[in-house]
C-alpha cells in the first residue's frame, strides 16, 4: 500500500490545504474549477476534500464518467443485443444498473439474458473462445482510458479469427467534451483538472489547442488526495500569476506525447464518428469512436440489427445540467426523492463515479433532507473531538 499511503499523508494534505488557502487569499475572488474525470470526483468525495478548500474555491464535477454520459438509447441497444438468441453479453460492472427505456442490463439478466461482468475486454474474448458455438458481444465503453484495451482485444480477436466475437463500441473522447463545455453558455469556469488516466494515453499535447483557444488553464492531475490538492494549487497559481498553460501534475504516469503503442492501436482499430450522442449534452461532433471498416467483422453495430432509437430521459431527470456543471445534484428536483442509487432515473445516480451517486453516498445533501446538510455538519464540528486513549 506504500503506493498510495504517501499520497494520503495527513500532514502533506494539511500542508497543501494551507498553500491553497494562501493562494486563494491572494487571488481574492471566487473561482470555479472543474475536475473532468469521474475517478477524480470519486476521490474528492471519498476523502471529503471539498470541505478542506477555502469557500472561494468551488469544484464543479465534470462529465468524465463514461457510464453517466451513455444515452438511454445506447443502453436499449445493449439490452437488445443481450437478448439476441444464444448471446453472451459481457460488460464492465458499472454499466449493469444504468437505466434505459426498457430497464437496465441487470433487469435484462433477471429476465434471462446471459449478461456477464468482466474485468477486462480480454476476458470477453476468452468467453468467446470457451463458447465457440455462441455469439459473444463486449460492451465497449469509456474514454481513451479503456479504449486501447478494447482495441488490443479486437486486434487479438482478428489474429485468432474469433468469428463469434464482436464489440458494441461506445467509446468517447475527452477533448470534444471540454470544447463543448467551454462553448456552452452560462457556465463559469476558471480552469480544468485534466483527467490523469486519459492523459496517460493521449498525453498533454491535445489540451494545448483548447487552452490557446479558450484561455482556460488545464492541469492534468492524478487520483489521490495529494494529486488533486496539488492540481488545484497549480491551477490557482496560474490564475494568480495570470498565466494560462497546460501543466502536468501527474507526471509519474503522464508523458506529454502520451502512450504511443496505445495511440497506434486506437488509430488502427477505430475511426472517429461524425456525431455521437452524449446523455445530457446532446450530439457532439467528432466525440465518439466507431470500429474501423477493416475490423467491421468485430463491430456488433454492423453484425446485428439494433433498434437505435433515441430515447428521451425522464422529464424530471436533470443529469444534463449536472453533467455540464450548471446544476448541483441536490438542486435537481428528483435527487433523493424519485432518483436514488437503488432506483436511478439518470445515469449520474448509477455509477460510483457519477456526481449524484457520489453526493448521495457521501452525504453532501444527504438522502433525506438536502437542506439539513449544512446544519448537520455545523453540529458535527461543534461536538467535542472524537478521541480516546483506547483507539489504536
Amino acid at each position: 500500500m506504500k503506493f498510495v499511503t504517501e499520497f494520503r499523508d495527513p500532514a502533506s494534505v494539511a500542508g497543501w490545504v494551507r498553500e491553497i488557502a494562501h493562494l486563494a487569499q491572494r487571488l481574492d475572488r471566487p473561482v470555479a474549477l472543474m475536475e473532468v474525470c469521474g475517478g477524480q470526483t470519486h476521490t474528492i468525495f471519498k476523502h471529503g476534500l471539498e470541505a478542506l478548500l477555502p469557500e472561494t474555491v468551488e469544484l464543479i464535477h465534470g462529465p468524465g464518467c463514461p457510464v453517466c454520459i451513455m444515452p438511454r438509447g445506447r443502453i436499449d441497444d445493449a439490452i437488445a443485443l443481450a437478448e439476441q438468441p444464444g448471446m453472451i453479453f459481457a460488460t464492465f460492472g458499472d454499466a449493469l444498473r444504468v437505466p434505459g427505456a426498457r430497464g437496465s442490463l441487470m433487469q435484462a439478466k433477471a429476465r434471462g439474458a446471459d449478461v456477464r461482468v468482466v474485468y477486462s475486454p480480454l476476458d470477453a474474448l476468452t468467453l468467446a473462445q470457451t463458447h465457440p458455438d455462441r455469439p459473444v458481444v463486449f460492451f465497449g465503453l469509456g474514454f481513451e482510458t479503456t479504449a486501447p484495451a478494447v482495441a488490443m482485444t479486437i486486434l487479438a480477436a482478428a489474429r485468432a479469427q474469433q468469428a463469434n466475437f464482436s464489440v458494441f463500441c461506445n467509446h468517447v473522447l475527452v477533448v470534444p467534451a471540454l470544447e463543448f463545455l467551454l462553448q456552452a453558455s452560462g457556465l463559469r469556469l476558471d480552469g480544468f483538472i485534466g483527467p490523469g488516466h486519459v492523459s496517460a494515453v493521449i498525453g498533454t499535447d491535445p489540451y494545448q489547442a483548447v487552452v490557446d483557444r479558450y484561455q482556460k488553464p488545464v492541469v492534468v492531475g492524478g487520483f489521490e488526495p495529494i494529486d488533486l490538492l496539488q492540481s488545484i494549487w497549480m491551477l490557482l497559481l496560474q490564475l494568480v500569476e495570470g498565466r494560462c498553460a497546460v501543466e502536468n501534475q501527474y507526471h509519474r504516469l503522464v508523458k506529454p506525447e502520451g502512450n504511443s503503442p496505445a495511440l497506434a492501436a486506437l488509430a488502427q482499430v477505430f475511426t472517429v464518428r461524425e456525431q455521437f450522442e452524449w446523455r445530457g449534452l446532446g450530439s457532439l461532433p467528432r466525440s465518439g469512436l466507431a470500429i474501423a471498416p477493416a475490423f467491421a467483422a468485430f463491430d456488433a453495430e454492423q453484425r446485428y440489427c439494433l433498434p437505435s432509437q433515441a430515447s428521451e430521459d425522464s422529464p424530471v431527470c436533470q443529469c444534463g445540467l449536472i453533467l455540464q456543471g450548471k446544476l448541483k445534484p441536490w438542486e435537481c428536483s428528483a435527487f433523493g426523492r424519485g432518483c436514488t442509487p437503488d432506483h436511478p432515473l439518470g445515469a449520474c445516480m448509477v455509477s460510483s463515479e457519477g456526481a449524484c451517486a457520489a453526493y448521495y453516498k457521501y452525504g453532501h445533501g444527504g438522502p433525506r433532507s438536502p437542506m439539513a446538510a449544512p446544519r448537520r455538519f455545523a453540529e458535527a464540528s461543534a461536538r467535542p473531538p472524537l478521541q480516546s486513549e483506547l483507539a489504536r
Partner: protein
Amino acid sequence: MASSNHPSDSLATPPSNVLEFQQPQHRTRSSDEGYITLAHGSGGRATHNLITDIFLETFRSDALNALDDSARLDLALFMARGDRLAFTTDSFVVDPLFFPGGDIGSLAINGTVNDLAVTGAQPLYLSCGFILEEGTPIALLRRIAQSMKLAADTARVKVVAGDTKVVPRGKGDQIYINTAGVGVARSNQVPGPRYLQPGDAILLSGPMGDHGTAILLARGDLALEADITSDCQPLHDLAAALCEACPTVRAMRDATRGGVAAVLNEFAQTSRVSMVIEEAALPVRPPVAAACEVLGLDPLHMANEGLLVAVVPGEFAARALMAMQMLPEGREACLVGHVTKADPPVVILQTRFGSERIIEWPMGDPLPRIC
C-alpha cells in the same frame, strides 16, 4: 433425519431398520463413491443410505440417530441457562463452496451460531437442511459435512435435525444449506439495535472485509492474488465475554453481507442516533486494503463472517475492549467511534484529513469500477 418418513416417537428406541443403515464404517469412502442422483431425494433407500452414511456418521448425535421426524430436547437443559429461547434461521449459498479460511459447511454453522450469539444467547442446537443438485459428488458432500461437524464441535453446538432434497441438474448450484438454531438468553440482558444512546462507544472485534475479499478473489475471475483468509468463526464466546464485562451491552451484530456500513446504518436508523467513526481507527489488513483499492471497493461494505460490531456505554468501553482482547477472536478488537445525537440519523466518517463524509447503506453487491 427429519425428512425420512419413519413414524417413531421415541428417542430411546430407534426403528429396527436403522441398524441396517448404521454400518457406514465398511463403505468405500474414496472420491469415486459416486454422485448425487435424483434417487437420493426420493425418500427411498438411496435417501436413507445417504443420510446414514454421510450425516449420521459425521454428526454422531443421538437425536439424529433416532431418525425421527423431529428432535425432542430436554427443556430442563434450556431453563438452567436462562429464561428466553432464542430461535433463528439462515440459508447459505456461496460460490465457491470452498475458500481460504472456510467452506459453505463451516459458514452454515458459524452463521447461525453468530446470529444467536449477537442477541445475547448461548447457542445450543442446530438443524441443517441441504438442497443438493443432481450430479454433485458425494465426496464433496462428505467433506462439507465433516467441516460442519468440526465447526459445530468448535462452537460446542449439536446438530439435532436435518433434511435433504435433491433438485435436477441445472436447477441449483451443487449445494445450498439452511441451518436453524436455538439457544438460551436471559431477559435481563437483551441487546438490540434500538437501545443505542449518545455517548456510547462503537467497538469492532477485528479487521474488516476479510471474508468478502477472500470470496471475491477465490472466484478467480479477477486475476488478483493475495494472502487473504476468510474470518469465518463463531463469536458466541466473544459475545458472552463482552456481556459479562459489560452488563448493559446496547447492541451487537455480526457484520455479514453489507459489511460494517450496513450494521452501523441499521443501528443509526433504529435508535435514531448518529454514528461517528474515525477512518484512522478502522482496522483493515493491508492485503484487504490493497485489493479493495485496486477494485474500487470499500472495506466498510465488504462481508465478514466472524466480525462482531458492538455498542456499549462509553464508560464500559475500556472494560469491554479488554474482555474482547483476552480471546483469540477478539485479539485485534478496537474502538472505532462514538454514538452522537443527531438528526437525521446517519453514519459519519471522519477522514484522516479532518473532513467528514456520510457512509451510506451499500447498494447491492459491490461492483468493481470501470477504471
